């Protein structure tokens, strides 16, 4: 990036939207994958789609790589900047553009926080379904890039099920409208492939989202078991009974104890707990919750507690959501993975993880979305102890291998980013990756849009292998891991 390029950038976004000071640029050196850092060459915070278009057009002309960033809560390094590249931060694009209650849609700019969408329409009786745990601060633009999920995607799906259309700036600087407020826009499903492309195909500048009616009834039950195996049996039993809960979460002893110590949710002393939430019509929820409780009893549930009111329900969820941060009480550091296994393979994979815990000497907490088999093993270690950080990373890699062997995936919702790019070939062969790269080339023939992410490269510039470190937003209590 030469001076003339920087001057032009500054002219486009104005003084307030341009960051070149080394100290200020340091703020953006990583997302929530905090051990992979790189100070961006320059940072812009555009205020309009047109500014983004001009910036990207300039990058395309000058062949300068660029990375888009929302709130920076991504856990796989998708927004890790480039030393010789530009970081385009979308947080200033944070307006609600249109609320269309009759059609159950809302149009927002990408910098709007996930939870803000639901807040905007709550008085109308609607909400936005995807609920990543960082939803208080994570942005819709980032959610679209990562195809974010959350605890309630078992029943309601992911971001890709809830985005109707976007406006985006392509890597060549063209602004495109992909789909619209009506379904079935003719053409290839560009939106389908753009969502979850981790910022490698375009920068989203507006999004029209689908809103859901707040259900008539929601009931939550907390059930304790003497092993994760039994809890997993219960999950299978619920699914086998033809019940699709809104959420099914599991925690093991280590994470239960840590959460209990941290936020006192009143969790029972048990080897495993399940949080099962049903929603829908009152009659349906009431009848199915009885069936869920029956299944729990049939599996020797140790204790069963149905939330009696909204406060009790919130307390259960608070305990669940505090689990990640609470692991700080167990060990100074932890490494988190995001592998997925077919639900029926959960007991077997959890046993393997337990064996790995014994073999490695590192404690591993399990708190995860049991309904869809999305594990979040928390590998505890102390970075001050020689070799422990590397050991934690090896353990994390081993767990991903279990997931792949069980027919699962290396990532359920955190994305591949930089963190897992080297593992992608374990799921896909060269031909598979070539098919994906064809899409990449169609959108971004010069390879300027978030290069080095998702797909494995020989060695990533600036990549420092290592485990999870706490994100500043977590320290300040603005974000939780889920």
């Amino acid at each position, binding site marked *: 990036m030469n001076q003339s390029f920087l001057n032009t950038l500054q002219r486009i976004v104005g003084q307030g939207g341009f960051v070149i000071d080394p100290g200020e640029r340091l703020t953006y050196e990583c997302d929530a994958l905090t051990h992979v850092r790189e100070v961006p060459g320059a940072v812009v915070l555009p205020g309009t789609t047109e500014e983004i278009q001009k910036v990207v057009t300039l990058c395309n002309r000058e062949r300068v790589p660029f990375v888009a960033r929302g709130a920076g809560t991504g856990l796989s390094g998708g927004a890790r900047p480039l030393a010789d590249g530009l970081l385009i931060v979308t947080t200033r694009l944070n307006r609600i553009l249109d609320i269309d209650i009759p059609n159950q849609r809302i149009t927002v700019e990408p910098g709007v926080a996930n939870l803000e969408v639901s807040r905007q329409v709550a008085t109308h009786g609607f909400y936005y379904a995807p609920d990543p745990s960082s939803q208080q601060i994570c942005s819709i633009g980032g959610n679209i890039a990562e195809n974010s999920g959350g605890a309630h995607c078992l029943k309601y799906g992911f971001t890709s099920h809830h985005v109707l259309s976007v406006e985006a700036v392509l890597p060549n600087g063209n602004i495109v409208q992909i789909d619209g407020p009506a*379904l079935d826009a003719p053409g290839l499903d560009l939106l389908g492939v753009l969502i979850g492309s981790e910022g490698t195909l375009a920068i989203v500048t507006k999004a029209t989202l689908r809103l859901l009616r707040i259900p008539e009834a929601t009931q939550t039950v907390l059930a304790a078991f003497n092993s994760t195996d039994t809890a997993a049996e219960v999950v299978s039993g619920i699914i086998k009974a033809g019940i699709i809960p809104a959420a099914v979460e599991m925690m093991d002893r280590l994470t239960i104890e840590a959460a209990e110590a941290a936020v006192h949710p009143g969790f029972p002393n048990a080897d495993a707990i399940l949080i099962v939430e049903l929603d829908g019509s009152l009659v349906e929820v009431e009848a199915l919750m009885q069936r869920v409780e029956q299944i729990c009893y049939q599996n020797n549930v140790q204790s069963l507690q149905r939330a009696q009111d909204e406060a009790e329900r919130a307390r259960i969820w608070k305990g669940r959501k505090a689990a990640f941060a609470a692991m700080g009480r167990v060990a100074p550091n932890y490494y988190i993975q995001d592998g997925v296994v077919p639900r029926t393979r959960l007991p077997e994979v959890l046993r393997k993880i337990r064996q790995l815990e014994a073999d490695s000497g590192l404690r591993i907490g399990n708190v995860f979305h049991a309904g869809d088999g999305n594990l979040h093993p928390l590998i505890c270690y102390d970075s001050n102890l020689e070799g422990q950080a590397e050991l934690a990373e090896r353990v994390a890699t081993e767990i991903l291998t279990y997931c792949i062997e069980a027919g699962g995936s290396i990532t359920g919702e955190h994305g591949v980013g930089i963190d897992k790019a080297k593992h992608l070939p374990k799921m896909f062969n060269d031909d598979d990756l070539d098919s994906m790269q064809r899409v990449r080339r169609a959108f971004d023939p010069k390879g300027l849009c978030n290069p080095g992410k998702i797909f494995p490269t020989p060695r990533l510039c600036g990549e420092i292998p290592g485990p999870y470190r706490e994100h500043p937003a977590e320290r300040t209590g603005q974000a939780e891991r889920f």
Partner: protein
Amino acid sequence: MKADSHVEQLATEARSIVGSAAVSGGGEKDAIDGIVPKLIVEPPDTQTLAEILAWASERQQSVLVRGGGTKITWGPLPSKLDVVLSTRHLNAVLNHRYGDLTATVEAGATLATVNDRLSQHGQWIPLDPFLENQATIGGIVATNDAGPRRHRHGSPRDLIIGVTLARVDGRCTKAGGAVVKNVAGYDLSRLLTGSFGSLAVILSASFKLAPQPHSSRTVVVKASSLSELGMIAMALLASQLTPTAIESQFPECLLFVRFETIVEAAINQAERTVKLAKDLGKQSTILSGAPEEILWRAHSARPWEEPGLVFKVSTPPADVTNTLEWISGAAEKHRVKWEAVGRAGLGVQIVRFDGDLATQIDLITSLRSRLKSPRQGSVVLLRGQPELKQRIDTWGPLGNVVETMRAIKQQFDPMGILNPGRGPGNI
């Protein structure tokens, strides 16, 4: 004579790849919009399918993939029709992981066969598209076709979790996987869904399944006008009721609201729907059992039974009424009959419209210009005589995304042999 020997030469080459029994000459029954293909090739397995694709690519022979053939005429006139590649021998349910609520099935299996098999464990792929007894998985995915239950379960793009495909270079590749939650790599499953066979050949697909419903009730509401019909549909959307389908029929002015859940909840919601309609001054009845099934079977056949132009018009749900009123006005002006059925809660209507060629052209053109831009809605031709397809763009305007779509086509099918000119946006 020369043409015949050319076809014979191609047939000989194809036979050397897939075997004699799998190659035959195209006949009238294989014609698409009156154009007869040179060869019909029915590969016995995925490997030979991929090989025949590579061969066709090398010989620059166009390839049109055929499953059940139920939607084969959807799309523009073929610009070139050499080889029809049938998936009928790829019809296995490869895997039903019932504990995981997922299944992987080959492209040539019919939805009905697959769902019959999945029902052994009380599950199904929750799709009920046009002609589901004959339509194949590959065709349903390639066209992203969905029926009334789309209201609850979505369309194929919402249910597909993985795909294997054969590229024109003869490589078989995969994307996605067999687990419901998975963000590893690009979602090519979705890109292939609705691509009308223009990028690659779908070999198999994995789906998220649903439990079969315990029971069902359908409320039939009789309205006296389109606007009344629309008002009731919008009131249902705004309510906390959870129907699996909200379907409208015109000119009968009927609304079918279906609830599929445990019996006490289905009855409760149906009764609440009756009350909602009554509060709006409309009478309704609740159907279950055989009468309900008969109603849905008859509905599913609409509006294809009668001849005439059939198109899909998609708008935001709140615009359905005024769009249909506009079509009604056009029908009155031209003194022709018309009918519409569709997803009232989603804004997707299938319209059949009589009239001569000039009338049909005028209707489509005017309706598209009324919708102003592809962002406000779209009109896609599903069934029309070849003369109409020569005069009218099947897809309508695509907006400024068409260049990217062409770039993707170029990457996957540089020679343009796959369903040439017929894919979305005529790619």
